[in-house]
């Protein structure tokens, strides 16, 4: 039994210490290696201190593990103020004796060095803090500051090695932060001493937009996500997104969601989009993309469900006003809390940050429908590949959440219609194309469904008409081998009608003629009939007369013979 137990213990492998930081525990599959030091490195302002502080405070509040924070760059007061904005009440935790902060500061100018020394003072301070609150977690925030304070690097290195070993024997899970160096991960090569787990935070500029990323460079004895994951610092702290690890295993639904346009629903087999799928509405400028998505958003709220409207172009008020002009009162839904707008310029922050904030919004608001209008604007802050990757992440994420998403995509004048600007068409389950056609001095809108996975859908082109009563779809004129829209369609229809009318009249006329002929003939027939009857009568008369005559002749003959007394 005991043997079995020990074996289990060995097989269970490395114990993890959860950080409580959203996403980080998923990437590291459970947290940092328990009882070992972890190195967090990155350039200035990448969020090292914040991550470390969250590790300690969340350790206290979520896992009841007291922690020690040894700061080399900021004093306790500054630290408390800095993280207070992120909702961490450091002072309260210190009062509860769950957290201990020590500020270690060495002023090089007031230090003279003579002979041998060690860093026992640091050990004593740390050890004292750990023991006083029974700490399980320790942070040394940029211990490299010692290199600036103490001149003898050889001693320092030897002592650091001793320190990390000592931390291990103390059984505490430690985070050591380090500034990014030129050739090494850290300026003074701390990775040489802290080799169990190394996490790299990156804060880079892409097209003048700052983006945070996090990567687990190594993790001894454990499997971990190796990609760069987008990270974000918001009012609740650090947030890491293990999105690219999402697989294509999302659940699918056969339920349908109305498009908000009855005629369009008809085109989708009478029911609309599949729930939880992604829809792309693409078209040139002014082709009515926003109107189509507004109809969708409106229909979602009408059912009492929630819709998130992400606009990269217009302010919420402008959208509400504009959509009011075609009969969609979106303001009403906003007041009811069913619709939430988020309007930001894409250049506000990087793609990753957009991604993270969309994530957060969806997690917090729980919409069943999401509108992104337009996705093409994102290309101004990243190249096509990046935008595509981001879109893929958004689409996968929303599908996993069973959220129906509608994206609009602006097709610029010159490019092919059936090519979406950011190369995302293959990600989409349904694609509605809007086109402007210009004929006879006017511009008309056309709508058709380019694809819709997994359902019978209309192959017909419809004319798309916006009015103050809403959106209407009409059949286009497809008689006489041409397709006509707008006033041309109406003219042609009027023409057709008049043609039809004159045709009818001709037929009526002919009918009248024929009827008259018919009557004339009938009259003739009557005359002839009368004549024939006359003849017949006469014939009868004649034959009757003949009989009488014969009779009379016979009579006379009899009379004569009687008189002659013939025998």
């Amino acid at each position, binding site marked *: 039994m005991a043997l079995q137990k020990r074996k289990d213990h060995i097989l269970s492998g490395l114990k993890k210490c959860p950080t409580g930081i959203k996403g980080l525990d998923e990437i590291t599959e459970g947290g940092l290696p328990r009882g070992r030091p972890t190195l967090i490195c990155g350039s200035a302002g990448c969020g090292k201190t914040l991550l470390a502080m969250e590790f300690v405070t969340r350790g206290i509040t979520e896992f009841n593990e007291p922690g020690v924070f040894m700061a080399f760059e900021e004093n306790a007061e500054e630290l408390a103020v800095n993280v207070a904005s992120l909702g961490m009440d450091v002072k309260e935790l210190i009062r509860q004796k769950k957290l201990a902060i*020590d500020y*270690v*500061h*060495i*002023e090089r100018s*007031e*230090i*003279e*060095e*003579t*002979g*041998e*020394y*060690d*860093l*026992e*003072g*640091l*050990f*004593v*301070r740390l*050890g*004292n803090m750990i023991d006083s609150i029974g700490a399980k977690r320790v942070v040394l925030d940029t211990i490299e500051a*010692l290199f600036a*304070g*103490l001149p003898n690097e050889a001693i320092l290195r030897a002592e650091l090695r001793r320190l990390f070993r000592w931390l291990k024997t103390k059984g505490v899970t430690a985070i050591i932060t380090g500034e990014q160096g030129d050739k090494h991960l850290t300026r003074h090569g701390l990775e040489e001493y802290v080799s169990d787990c190394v996490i790299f935070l990156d804060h880079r500029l892409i097209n003048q937009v700052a983006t945070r990323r996090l990567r687990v460079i190594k993790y001894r004895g454990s499997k971990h996500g190796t990609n760069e994951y987008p990270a974000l610092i918001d009012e609740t702290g650090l947030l890491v997104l293990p999105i690219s690890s999402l697989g294509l295993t999302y659940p699918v639904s056969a339920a349908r969601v109305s498009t908000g346009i009855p005629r369009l629903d008809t085109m989708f087999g009478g029911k609309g989009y599949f729930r939880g799928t992604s829809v792309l509405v693409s078209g040139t400028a002014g082709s009515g993309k926003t109107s189509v998505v507004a109809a969708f958003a409106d229909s979602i709220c009408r059912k009492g469900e929630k819709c998130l409207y992400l606009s990269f172009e217009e302010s919420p008020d402008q959208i509400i006003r504009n959509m009011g002009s075609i009969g969609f009162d979106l303001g009403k839904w906003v007041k009811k809390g069913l619709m939430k707008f988020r309007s930001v310029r894409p250049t506000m922050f990087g793609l990753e940050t957009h991604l993270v904030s969309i994530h957060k919004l969806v997690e917090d608001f729980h919409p069943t429908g999401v509108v992104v209008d337009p996705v093409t604007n994102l290309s101004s802050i990243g190249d096509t590949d990046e935008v595509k990757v981001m879109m893929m992440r958004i689409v996968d994420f929303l599908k996993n959440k069973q959220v129906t998403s509608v994206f609009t995509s602006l097709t610029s004048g010159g490019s092919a219609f059936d090519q979406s600007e950011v190369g995302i068409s293959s990600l989409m389950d349904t694609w509605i194309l809007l086109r402007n056609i210009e004929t006879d001095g006017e511009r008309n809108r056309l709508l058709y469904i380019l694809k819709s996975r997994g359902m019978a859908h209309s192959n017909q082109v419809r004319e798309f008409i916006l009015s103050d009563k809403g959106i209407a779809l009409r059949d286009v004129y497809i008689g006489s081998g041409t397709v006509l829209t707008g006033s041309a369609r109406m003219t042609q229809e009027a023409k057709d009608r008049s043609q039809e009318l004159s045709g009818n009249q001709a037929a009526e006329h002919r009918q009248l003629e024929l009827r008259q002929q018919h009557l004339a003939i009938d009259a003739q027939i009557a005359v002839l009939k009368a004549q024939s009857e006359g003849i017949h009568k006469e014939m009868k008369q004649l034959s009757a007369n003949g009989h009488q005559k014969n009779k009379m002749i016979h009579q006379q003959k009899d009379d004569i013979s009687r008189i002659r007394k013939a025998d």
Partner: protein
Amino acid sequence: MTFLGFEKRTKEWKFKMKTEKSSKKQWELRLYVAGQTDRAVTAFANLKKICEEHLAGKYSIEIIDLLKNPKLARGDQIVAIPTLVRKLPEPVRKIIGDLSNTQRVLVGLDLRERT
């Protein structure tokens, strides 16, 4: 085993200092150690020697053993051991190491110009 006599002697010096209140320059020195290590003993011996030579009758030395009073390390921002802190005269000066290089100790205590 000279180390065991530390505290006793310190008291003596303090006493001495009190009797010489008239003296203008008061030197208040603190030596931080962590346990009775060889290095601490060496540092103390070196310090005593220097003080006797250059500050005879004008100084007091307080020895602080961090293993006994770990909390005291914070106040003077002690990291390295041993550290000698010149509390008075101001400004505060720190000298780390076993004080084996007399010249540098003197420079550190502002008893000699930097060269």
